[in-house]
């Protein structure tokens, strides 16, 4: 059980609290939260899954992208209470304990990162793309990642990494 409720109590007024159960990376997690808590904060502070980054906090950068019932969403732009009864996959859930996912391996092989801040969001968005389209063109990769900002790489190696992962997934790399 995780309570985030002390951290954000500001006044003596009655604080509404909700109990939610969310399947995070395949594991059921229950928490008592304030409805105004954002999903990104529950993941990072409540569940200590700090792979999900909060960059801009204004729905622009995509660093906080996670899969919500398989679809990529910006976890800074969803209330944690809305995830009650749903499935969330963070970057930590992409790999098994023994093996990196093809997308993660691709980022390693093609040097798809520099500072690494945008990387979790990029990997999650790329994972969602490849689940839907296992053989994307370069344009399709760029289009699918256009909601995720990187200020280091110029995107070149990120796109290469995703194309590498697509080839690996198809058994060609």
């Amino acid at each position: 059980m995780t309570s985030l409720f002390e951290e954000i109590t500001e006044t003596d007024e009655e604080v509404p609290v909700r109990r939610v159960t969310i399947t995070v990376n395949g594991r059921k997690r229950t928490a008592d939260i304030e409805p105004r808590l954002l999903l990104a904060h529950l993941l990072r502070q409540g569940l200590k899954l700090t792979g999900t980054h909060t960059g801009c906090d204004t729905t622009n950068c995509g660093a906080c992208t996670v899969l919500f019932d398989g679809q990529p969403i910006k976890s800074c732009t969803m209330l944690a209470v809305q995830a009650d009864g749903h499935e969330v996959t963070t970057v930590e859930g992409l790999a098994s304990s023994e093996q990196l996912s093809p997308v993660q391996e691709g980022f390693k092989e093609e040097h798809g990162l520099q500072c690494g801040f945008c990387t979790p969001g990029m990997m999650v968005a790329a994972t969602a793309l490849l689940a839907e389209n296992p053989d994307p063109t370069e344009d399709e990769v760029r289009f699918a990642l256009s909601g995720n900002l990187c200020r280091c790489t110029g995107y070149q190696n990120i796109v290469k990494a995703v194309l590498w992962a697509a080839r690996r997934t198809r058994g060609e790399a």
Partner: protein
Amino acid sequence: MYPARFRYEAPRTLEEAIELLHEGQGEAKVLAGGQSLVPLLKLRFAAPELLVDINNLTDLGYHRIEADGTIRVGALRRHGELERAADLSAAQPTMAAAAPLIADPVVRSRGTLVGSLCHADPQGDWAAVATALGGYVVAHGPKGRRQIPVTEFVTGPFQNTLAYDEVAVEAVMPPPTQGAVVHGGFLKLERRVGDFATAGAAISIELVGDRVARAGIALTGVGSRTLHAAEAEEALTGGVLDGRAIEHAADLAAGIAEPSSDHRGSADYKRHVVHTFVSRILTRIAQPGPGRPGEPERTAA
């Protein structure tokens, strides 16, 4: 950033949602995709006392194309679902052109068309599309349902004409003229993906033979609300889509733009973009060729 404190309810039925809104006495907000509302809550531009999350009303997650061509989009249909809908891209070129240009792909997983209409952002995309298509919003309140034409629904920046205890349950695009071929396009200038529109134009043209049976033109990003280019529509209706008609319509459309100069460009520049977009979409319709994303292609209805 944390939103201000609010009470949260996630009703299971529409009736319950309406009751909650009624109880809220104007201090309640409906939460659908949340891609505009949650940022507003975080920035504390909005601080409702009660949030009525309608995401459990899964019956509203539909779009339908009826036999006569009427298109109905439920309040929980997400942009991304519309973007990937093959039936929609075959039947409705203006919507098909706009869907992949809404915000960015991650936002499109969550945000909704109806929510975008309700948000009434002067730089929003769907309100321009719905205006060009002569669309309306179906509002459901304690006294039942009513239809509100989009031109009357969006009244100003972030203002709509919903009563405080009504839920916008559906957006409807009426059927095209019988026997007409439906053409259309949507073009938007943005500095980067996901930025607000510097200027945008949505156009729908229904042709019977080579005559324009119906024209719909609306602009986004160049006024304090979505602009309806009614004079440009009238000028095209009944005529042939030739170079002179196109130039005249583009002049009229650019004439109603009320852009302001800002970091996205000067007012003159934005008016020029409107002229170019209107003329480009109409020219494409008149002389179809291979399309690019965001540009109209010839589509039979």
